[in-house]
């Protein structure tokens, strides 16, 4: 069971003066239970790719396969695919419409025919997952919250449906750095607890290095790299060619290496790098 794209092309406004190749021959594979990053500069096709995953867009050529089912414009197929793949769009708080947070989070569950008890349970669980106390928040209006809280409610409104794949398009855009990390940590815990596959579209390479084991790199509508995040960031030339920048930790590690510092660390995510730096320093101190 997985999400698979086979040679997918997508052309916007095919045959018009604005005709535009958004995706070209995209083939990729997303494993169950993975935390996958989708990165690429602005206009590289990330958002277009995401909209293929639950049948909001249909490929011009090639197949999108979700759990052995080819996504196509058919009501029952779409209902099944959307039941499996949830998408949190950019600035998801713009979709709020309900009077209370409970109603907002329950919207998706009701659409999928959850019973009253199931709705109740899912809403409470989703709110706890995103770190908001259900007792305090559920009866408030979603419009009176702070930006960070709104974002969390919006994420809760998608994960409450209990989908197997959760796609998030820039979920941390416009949040302060503490909230950013907290939101991503909540997603990671959701992944571990419920074996949900998390697909994160992001411009923030530090986030990607920290949370995503796997990464898909898009460049002008094609897949420029697919594999382990660490392997991608070690290839500084490729990172540069795809218009991205190295995460802080990788930059620091390279700088240390280049100036011939006795502190040598493997390039990896911030946490692990701090640990290995600590080890390194204590080794030097010991010598």
């Amino acid at each position, binding site marked *: 069971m997985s999400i698979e794209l086979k040679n997918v092309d997508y052309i*916007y*406004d095919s045959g018009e*003066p604005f005709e535009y190749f958004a995706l070209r021959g995209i083939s990729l594979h997303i494993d169950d239970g993975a935390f996958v990053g989708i990165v690429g500069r602005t206009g590289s096709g990330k958002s277009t790719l995401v*909209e293929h995953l*639950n049948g*909001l867009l249909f490929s011009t050529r090639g197949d999108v396969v979700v759990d052995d089912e080819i996504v196509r414009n058919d009501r029952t197929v779409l209902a099944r695919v*959307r*039941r499996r793949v*949830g*998408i949190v*769009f950019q600035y*998801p708080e*713009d*979709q*709020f*419409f309900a009077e209370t947070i409970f109603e907002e989070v329950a*919207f*998706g569950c009701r*659409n*999928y025919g959850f019973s009253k008890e199931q709705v109740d349970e899912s809403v409470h669980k989703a709110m706890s997952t995103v770190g908001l106390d259900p007792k305090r928040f559920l009866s408030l209006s979603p*419009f009176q919250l702070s930006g960070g809280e709104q974002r969390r409610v919006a994420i809760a*409104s*998608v994960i409450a*449906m209990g989908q197997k794949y959760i796609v998030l398009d820039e979920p941390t855009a416009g949040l302060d750095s503490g909230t950013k990390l907290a939101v991503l940590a909540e997603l990671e815990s959701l992944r571990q607890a419920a074996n949900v596959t998390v697909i994160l579209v992001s411009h923030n390479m530090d986030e990607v290095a920290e949370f995503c084991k796997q990464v898909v790199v898009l460049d002008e509508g094609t897949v420029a790299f697919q594999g382990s995040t660490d392997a991608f960031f070690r290839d500084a030339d490729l990172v540069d060619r795809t218009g991205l920048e190295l995460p802080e930790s990788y930059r620091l590690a390279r700088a240390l290496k280049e100036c011939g510092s006795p502190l040598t660390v493997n390039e990896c995510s911030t946490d692990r790098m701090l640990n290995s730096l600590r080890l390194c320093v204590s080794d030097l101190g010991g010598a």
Partner: protein
Amino acid sequence: MALSRSFVLGQHYPGNSVVHRSGALVKLVSTIALMVGVFVATKTAQYTPIVLLLVVGIGVSRIPLRFFARGLKPILFLIVLTVMVQIFFTPGTAIWRFWFVRVTREGLGLAGFILCRLVLLTLVSVLLTASTSPIELTDAVSDLLKPLSRIGVPSAEIALVMSIAMRFVPTILEETERIIRAQVSRGARIGEGSLVVRMKSFIPILIPLFVSSFRRADDLAIAMEARGFRVGSPRTRYHARHFQSFDAFIFLGTAAAVSGVILWRLFL
């Protein structure tokens, strides 16, 4: 995508033909004159000068014909309905009858005439909006209204309101699509089920749209004030436009076609 696609009437088809490059005010005045011409004609044959001009205009504009066909689609129902009514309910000499239905020679003639009238009106306006960007068009409208400001019509403000409205039509369509995508991803079924269910399914789209539109209006007002905008103060234009030689052709062509129709009606 789907929404902005079905919105052809009043859509711009960018290009670089002479029709595109000529002045919006000239095109707007010509369009109005041609529409008057269409209503002046009393017989189908009298449309000939306008049809000729339109054929030349469409040809020169290099806008594909299917773009015009798409512009006709929204009024297809209206066309069919009026043509049917004319065919079946015009009294006169019957040329075909079945039970209580009868088709008259006069009915057919009138139906053809009305058909031409509706199609011509649409094609003329599609040619205008396809070859002129909305911003140019509102500038032209404000120029047209300018003489009225002497008698107290706030023409500058009307033009501003129009150009802001025009400017935000695509933005709001895009916003609508964005919200629809988000709600559909949350399992919303839009436009399905009974009438009540269908109406209710629009609430999750309309409320976010209202909220964001008001916020946008607020932001815009602040941004305009921050850049020194004051109501009623004189303003200049970034793209000042001057009369060009092709404008004269459009003027003369229109004048010829419309006076052709009038003369035909009066003397033939």
